[in-house]
């Protein structure tokens, strides 16, 4: 048999593949490389990594299974797919944990070497599913991945235990062949990523090639598949995760504002990757500070903001609770600050590696006293870039802390990002106070730190080091204008109202909420954050089946866009799908007295299109 195997290539318009194995098996790298290879081919891609909270849960157990799902398509896609059509399972536990998601007819590729008695027992199998006929409804391929990997690496003198580690690259080679992905980018990646250890480079390369050749030569695979390139809008693209897009957005915003950036952060899943990414970019005048705790992280960012930097802090889950007091101080000091919350399942430690949208009401209200904070939410991994530049722009323009919400699904998920031209980046202008702004009755010219800009209600930002503008600010209530300590009752009421008015006034400078409604529907589905992809896909599916559904997605959650009341009044029925118990629904009801229908999922995993479609079909049918 020749290497130029000339088996039929079947064109697929999309493919959802899930790699699953032990958390030590390298499934995230495998999935990531498969995605990168597809993105280079011009496919649209969307990914969903799903890994256990424990770094090394007991090997071979269901708790230790790590998975990475990617959808690649020749058309625009919005989600990593509801169900995989191909499952790669490296051991019995991975099979057991994932097989229920695979529809009948799906492809299962298993590492048959891993299906020994002990591993089967650990996963809770009484009999070997590869042999007992229980997988008959699938296209099952048992491949002795471990032994073939060891065989391939025999010549390089690696210890079997080390060589075995390359088995994920064997699997990757195999599926790369099966789905016609380019090989070179992965070979380059192996060379660069493991450059420090030539034996690892060699072993991974040999394993990867062995996987390819196995696919080409072995009789078990009847045909290979290919997914043609999708038609994204013209432009140059790179494949990007939400956390990387967010980091780049911050860097771009700092560059646009011509200000240094300071990130104060404490490591926490799934926000840490932003700290990792930003710490690489000192050349952009980015300072990263790994603080002693979440509180110091946000406090140091606020201190840097007092000195004229863009102060940023990142966190997830319980970190947000810890930062709340300082966010209140930032509201009182009226200094720019961006607090990034990569939401995860709660309460408490909750589900650290699973996604949820359950911090909305916390960031909206979770401070003592009345302390309004603007909220911006990212909708897709690539959109994290724009959400970050917007958060910085609002913080700088209005001298206010701003919450930027992302979540675990966006943070680790990836999709193509169209590289913006410099001219497409938002204009961010900052002016610092340079001179006195008030003449006292006795004729003295002084600087009043709380004398506001009439339009934005922002207070002047006078940097230490500026002669003549020395001033003191603090958390005690300040007199309107002078900023001196004031316990005057009427002044306090005024200051509470002004702080509120300032945040509400931001809506004047926000775009209207766009509604996608080609055929005047009665039913509107409105979401926020990472449900975007699934909502768009659901609505597109339903329209193809003849339903009229309108769709809108909120990026600004405080203040809301000015036209939101109008939009809501136009529709009889509004569905709000959320990965929480109904937090946006709560805000909409209380603010607009509009009764909305909730669709809630609190399982640590995103909605499936089928779930949203079912809810919309019910509403659309009722309203006919």
């Amino acid at each position, binding site marked *: 048999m020749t290497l130029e195997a000339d088996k039929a290539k079947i064109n697929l318009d999309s493919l959802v593949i899930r790699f699953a194995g032990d958390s030590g098996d390298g499934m995230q790298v495998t999935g990531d490389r498969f995605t*990168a290879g597809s*993105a*280079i*081919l*011009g496919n649209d891609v969307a990914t969903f990594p799903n890994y256990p909270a424990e770094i090394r849960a007991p090997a071979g157990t269901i708790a230790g299974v790590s998975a990475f799902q990617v959808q690649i398509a020749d058309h625009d896609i919005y989600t990593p797919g509801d169900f995989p059509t191909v499952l790669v399972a490296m051991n019995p536990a991975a099979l057991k944990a994932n097989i229920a998601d695979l529809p009948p007819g799906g492809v299962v590729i298993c590492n048959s070497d891993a299906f020994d008695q002990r591993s089967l027992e650990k996963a809770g199998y009484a009999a070997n599913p590869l042999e007992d006929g229980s997988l008959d409804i699938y296209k099952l391929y048992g491949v002795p991945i471990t032994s073939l990997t060891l065989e391939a690496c025999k010549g390089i003198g690696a210890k079997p235990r080390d060589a075995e580690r390359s088995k994920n690259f064997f699997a990757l080679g195999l599926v790369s062949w099966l789905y016609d992905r380019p090989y070179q980018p992965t070979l380059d990646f192996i060379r660069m990523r493991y450059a420090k250890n030539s034996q690892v480079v060699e072993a991974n390369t040999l394993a990867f090639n062995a996987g390819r050749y196995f696919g080409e030569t072995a009789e078990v695979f009847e045909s290979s598949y290919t997914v043609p390139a999708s*038609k*994204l*809008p*013209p432009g*140059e*693209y*790179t*494949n*990007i995760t939400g956390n990387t897009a967010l980091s*780049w957005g911050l*860097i*771009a915003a700092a*560059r646009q504002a011509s200000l240094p950036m*300071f990130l*104060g952060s404490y490591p926490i899943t799934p926000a840490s990757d932003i700290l990792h990414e930003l710490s690489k*970019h*000192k*050349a*952009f*005048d980015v*300072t990263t*500070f790994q*603080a*002693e*705790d979440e509180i*110091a992280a946000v*406090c*140091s960012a*606020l*201190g*840097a*903001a*007092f*000195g*004229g*930097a863009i102060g940023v802090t990142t966190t997830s889950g319980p970190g947000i609770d810890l930062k709340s007091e300082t966010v209140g*101080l930032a509201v009182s*000091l009226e200094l720019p600050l961006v607090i990034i919350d990569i939401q995860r399942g709660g309460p408490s430690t909750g589900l650290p590696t699973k996604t949820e949208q359950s911090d909305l009401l916390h960031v909206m209200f979770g401070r003592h006293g009345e302390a309004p904070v603007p909220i911006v939410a990212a909708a897709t991994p690539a959109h994290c870039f724009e959400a970050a530049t917007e958060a910085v722009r609002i913080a700088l323009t209005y001298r206010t802390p701003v919450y930027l919400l992302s979540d675990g699904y966006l943070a680790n998920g990836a999709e193509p990002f169209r*590289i*913006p031209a*410099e001219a497409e980046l938002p204009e961010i202008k900052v002016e610092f106070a340079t001179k006195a702004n008030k003449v006292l009755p006795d004729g003295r010219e002084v600087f009043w730190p709380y004398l506001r800009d009439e339009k934005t209600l922002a207070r002047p930002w006078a940097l*230490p*080091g*500026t*002669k*003549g503008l*020395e*001033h*003191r*600010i*603090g*958390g*005690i209530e300040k007199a309107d204008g002078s900023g*001196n*300590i004031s316990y005057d009752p009427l002044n306090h009421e005024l200051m509470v109202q002004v702080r509120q008015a300032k945040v509400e006034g931001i809506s004047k400078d926000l775009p209207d909420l766009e509604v996608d409604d080609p055929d005047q529907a009665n039913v509107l589905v409105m979401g926020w954050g990472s449900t975007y992809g699934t909502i768009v896909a659901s609505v597109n599916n339903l329209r193809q089946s003849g339903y009229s559904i309108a769709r809108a997605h909120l990026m600004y959650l405080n203040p809301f866009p000015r036209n939101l009341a109008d939009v809501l009044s136009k529709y009889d029925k509004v569905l709000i799908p959320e990965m929480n118990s109904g937090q946006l629904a709560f805000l909409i009801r209380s603010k607009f007295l509009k009764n909305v229908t909730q669709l809630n999922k609190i399982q640590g995993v995103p909605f499936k299109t089928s779930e949203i479609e079912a809810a919309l079909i019910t509403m659309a049918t009722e309203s006919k």
Partner: protein
Amino acid sequence: MTTIEKLTRKDFMSDQEVRWCPGCGDYSILAAVQLLLPELNAEKHNTVFISGIGCAARFPYYMNTYGVHSIHGRAPAVASGLAITRPDLDVWVIGGDGDMLSIGGNHLIHALRRNINMVVVMFNNQIYGLTKGQYSPTSEVGKVTKSSPFGSADQPFNPISLAIGAEATFVARTHDMDRAHMQFVLKKAHEHKGASFVEIYQNCNVFNDGAFESITGKENRQDKLLILQDGEPILFGKDNAYGIAPDPSGGIRIVEVAKEGMEHVLVHDAKKKDPSLAFALSRLGISNEEPRPIGIFRDIEREDYGTSLLTQQQNVLQKQGKGALDKLFRSQSTWVVEE
């Protein structure tokens, strides 16, 4: 070139009325600082005072410089962000014993170990003043207060020992009854590059009056106050009759100079890398029979955090040049979708 006008205390006084209780030790500290800054050629606009919460934390409002009155315990953290990003500024952190050692203990130790360039001044009055008289993390065991009617069961911190243990590069103690000594210590703290920790014994005449009277009171100083002077033998008592000598067991002990001979008395060296002597001195005075040292316990050189970061950044800039967005966006593989 700008000509430097000689500033005076008045230049550093803000227009805000000082509102501590009459007779509070904070007044003398404020005066000492306001008088000292012109001596240091400090510039108002390049000076920032940052505080947390407590009586002491009102300090920034009274200084005609830049200032932030932040939240309880967090002043060292707020100041860290400022000092790292603005190495051109003189950053002072002011707080009390509750603020810095209780709710803010974590931030204090980390700012000290990182050696962030700032002067941390802790007013120690061994009580919570602003909340009206509860025991603090420096109150003595058995102290009867509003929240400890049967006496405090808490072992107090020794702030100097704590700072030395936290890898602080400058550690000193002074007291509010001696302006000259306060100014001497604060001047040295200000000269020191990196984090300087200064504990000031401060009398809270309302809730803990006379807490340090047995040490700093005029009639007690001679026997109970040991003034550390760099390069000088460590002596105290009337006619410097007593001294500190190494103890064969490893620590230090008090000796009568006439009996043991001057050659056995230790010479103070704050610059010693090894912190054992500074630590041993910090333990003196825990029992009432011993004298309590004031002065500079430790003053060593170590690169401050901001400078280390700046060096890293300069190295990166030298290697990579200024960051370019179009390069950043293309740092992973890219592809083009044609019209």
